[in-house]
């Protein structure tokens, strides 16, 4: 998104217009790549994340986890077209939120351009980000949340939390004006979803029997397949965030894979050392940790930096879920905060350390003589985490009011939500 989106947004400050009127020329190569990249990111949610999370949830809640993921993506798809896009990318209002000028995509047509691609492609590309971000949150609360509450929460959260933060960073809001670097969503997507998940988990409370009875994942093979699909889709997520088919996209593509692999290896070896077993769940989680951490840095850092970013992410992710979570005692069921929140923070800071101006001009981190960038990154982390914590809390309270509570009743929780909520079962194995 970065500089192009930023430039468009700045132009819009001077000309009261939709973000579509920059004097650009359509590039067919960029457009073709961006349509493919968008489709890649789409796969991450109803396939990648659904399998990744579904496999980790208990056998009696696997379908409920799928349902929450699918419905998050579908709601995101619809809300984005109606008012999400304009709140994020409409004409800037005091750096805080986009205006309502592009509600229902008003003012955008087949000939509208965002940079060198049709605005329609940009709209859908951004929509896939909104969809996955809200879906990431559900990892914190699987096995116990009312489906109706999840639907209301999703609608409100995308409107009040995601869209404004997206505007701050990519839509020309205060964070981009401040010079915060977030190539593909370290703050907007991962810190945002991780912190929101933590708040939701704290408000909803622990699962019945948490810490006392064993809670086995339904299928580590589904989770591993989900991680692989996330990895695959992440190429669109990170390399696509360049919004062009060029050298920076290639660099983002390369560092994304390197960091994912390093994350997996680091998590696996750490766990092997500490817990004596190199688990497959650990390898799959390490992949995601590495991907999360490289996300804000993808178009700004070189290969060597991606090795370090992935390495630290793998160790930090393992520490967060295996040590920190146990110490703090919250039930972040599938570790949305532990993996996405913590590794997102690391990635955002690492961007401030390793950003190399030889890759993207003007993006210069600590090791290239710009310590101020690290400070800017820290403010963007605190700003995102602080806003999402408070706004998510308010959204939760409104949701609780609308749906009469947030949590399924005790009996349904014990019987499992696949059967009691959806009237189905995930497996028929006997």
């Amino acid at each position: 998104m970065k500089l192009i989106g930023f430039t468009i947004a700045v132009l819009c400050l001077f000309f009261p217009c939709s973000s579509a009127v920059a004097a650009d020329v359509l590039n067919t190569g960029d457009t073709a790549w961006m349509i493919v990249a968008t489709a890649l990111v789409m796969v991450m949610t109803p396939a990648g994340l659904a399998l990744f999370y579904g496999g980790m949830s208990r056998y009696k809640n696997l379908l409920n986890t799928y349902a929450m993921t699918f419905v998050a993506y579908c709601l995101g798809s619809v809300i984005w077209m109606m008012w999400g896009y304009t709140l994020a990318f409409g004409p800037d209002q005091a750096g805080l939120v986009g205006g309502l000028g592009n509600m229902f995509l008003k003012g955008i047509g087949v000939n509208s351009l965002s940079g060198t691609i049709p605005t329609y492609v940009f709209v859908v590309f951004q929509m896939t980000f909104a969809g996955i971000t809200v879906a990431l949150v559900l990892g914190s609360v699987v096995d116990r949340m009312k489906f109706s509450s999840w639907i209301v929460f999703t609608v409100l959260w995308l409107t009040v939390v995601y869209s404004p933060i997206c505007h701050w960073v990519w839509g020309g809001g205060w964070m981009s004006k401040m010079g915060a670097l977030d190539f593909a969503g370290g703050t907007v997507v991962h810190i945002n979803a991780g912190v929101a998940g933590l708040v939701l988990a704290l408000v909803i409370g622990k699962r019945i029997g948490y810490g006392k009875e064993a809670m086995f994942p339904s299928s580590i093979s589904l989770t591993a397949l989900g991680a692989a699909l996330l990895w695959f889709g992440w190429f669109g997520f990170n390399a696509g965030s360049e919004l062009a088919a060029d050298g920076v996209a290639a660099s983002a593509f390369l560092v994304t894979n390197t960091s994912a692999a390093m994350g997996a290896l680091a998590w696996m070896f750490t766990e092997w050392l500490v817990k004596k077993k190199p688990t497959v769940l650990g390898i799959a989680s390490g992949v995601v940790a590495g991907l999360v951490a490289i996300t804000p840095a993808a178009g700004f850092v070189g290969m060597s930096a991606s090795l370090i970013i992935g390495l630290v992410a793998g160790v930090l992710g393992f520490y967060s879920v295996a040590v920190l979570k146990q110490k703090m005692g919250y039930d972040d069921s599938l570790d949305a905060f532990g993996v996405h929140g913590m590794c997102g923070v690391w990635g955002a800071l690492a961007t401030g350390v390793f950003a190399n101006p030889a890759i993207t001009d003007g993006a210069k981190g600590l090791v290239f003589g710009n310590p101020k960038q690290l400070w800017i990154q820290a403010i963007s982390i605190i700003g995102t985490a602080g806003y999402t914590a408070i706004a998510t809390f308010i959204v939760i309270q409104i949701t609780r009011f609308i749906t009469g509570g947030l949590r399924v009743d005790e009996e349904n929780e014990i019987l499992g939500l696949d059967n009691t909520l959806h009237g189905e079962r995930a497996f028929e194995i006997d």
Partner: protein
Amino acid sequence: MKKIEAIIKPFKLDDVKEALNEIGIQGMTISEVKGYGRQKGHKEIYRGAEYVVDFIPKVKIEIVVEASRVDEVVSKIQDAANTGKIGDGKIFVFPVEQAIRVRTGEKGKDAI
């Protein structure tokens, strides 16, 4: 008549079945069961959280034979199911009062 109930490691079932076939034992009932004895359970680790799985899968074999054959059958099972490691299982012997073949109504040793 006696009933022999043997709880063994699942992968030893074929060996035990063949050993019993060799000495002319023609029928058995098996069930998949779970339990633990001295072997205890095993540990599984998911994202650092360790869960102890207490109950380990075993196979239970039930055979009814004439009292005179009990020692022979028990020793065959013991040989075939033995791996020398903890968790090989146990064999129990019970008295049986009566046996009836459903189809013909035969009773006692003719029914087994």
